[in-house]
């Protein structure tokens, strides 16, 4: 996979979460995604950006335009140095419908993306990467 452009944004406030949504929307438009695919990506980004701020104590997102062979897409990497996620399996399952539980929206972000990967260690932090390819 080739990364052709990178933008890094800080997520340190609620306003930043909104800003990230707008930045991802802009990148998705640039990448030539259909409106529905843009919406899916921005929604997933919103979930993950919020997690980074609310559960991760703040962090960053890296927005990259990527190419692999004939296809191109966007890759988003959310990183924080927060408390980490103790039980990733469960977090993915609870995903959206857990109500007031963890409500991490992780499962949702995964469902809305073509590729999803997560690393998390208690007391070290969390890194979630999602990718959407232009169809």
């Amino acid at each position: 996979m080739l990364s052709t452009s990178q933008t890094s944004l800080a997520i340190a406030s609620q306003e930043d979460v909104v800003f990230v949504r707008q930045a991802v929307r802009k990148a998705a438009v640039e990448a030539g995604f259909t409106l529905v695919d843009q919406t899916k990506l921005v929604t997933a980004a919103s979930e993950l950006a919020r997690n980074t701020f609310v559960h991760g104590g703040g962090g960053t997102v890296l927005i990259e335009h990527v190419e692999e062979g004939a296809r191109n897409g966007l890759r988003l990497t959310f990183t924080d140095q927060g408390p980490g996620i103790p039980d990733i399996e469960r977090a993915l399952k609870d995903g959206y419908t857990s109500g007031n539980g963890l409500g991490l929206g992780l499962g949702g972000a995964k469902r809305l993306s073509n590729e999803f990967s997560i690393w998390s260690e208690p007391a070290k932090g969390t890194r979630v990467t999602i990718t959407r390819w232009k169809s």
Partner: protein
Amino acid sequence: MERIPILKLGEFLLVSIQIDMHDRLAISLQDDLTGKIVATGAKGVLIDISGLDIVDSFIGRMLGNIAGMSRILDAATVLVGMQPSVAITLVELGLSLPGIRTALNIDKGMELLRQSLEEQWDSPGVINKPD
């Protein structure tokens, strides 16, 4: 701090969400609405989301909360103007907005609210409204 305006339309309240809300703003909308329902004795709330190009789990929860609280306060809630790409994404997300009525636009939303008010009158145990 900015607040989302709530308009009174007869016995209904209309909220039109035009901006990309951060979480704090969404929560204050919740509070403002419930306060206004009580203050005005409104029987219905119309939430226009035609200006929202995404609805994520937080916003979804907020909408659910508004519907739930309104019901307790004896007001019906109708969500109108959901964009197709938002609807498709919500389905993909697995979010179904349980217990929330929806309509295509404000006109149809008003119709729905009026209908549900009429139906209240027709429920058993209530004196029938004279024709």
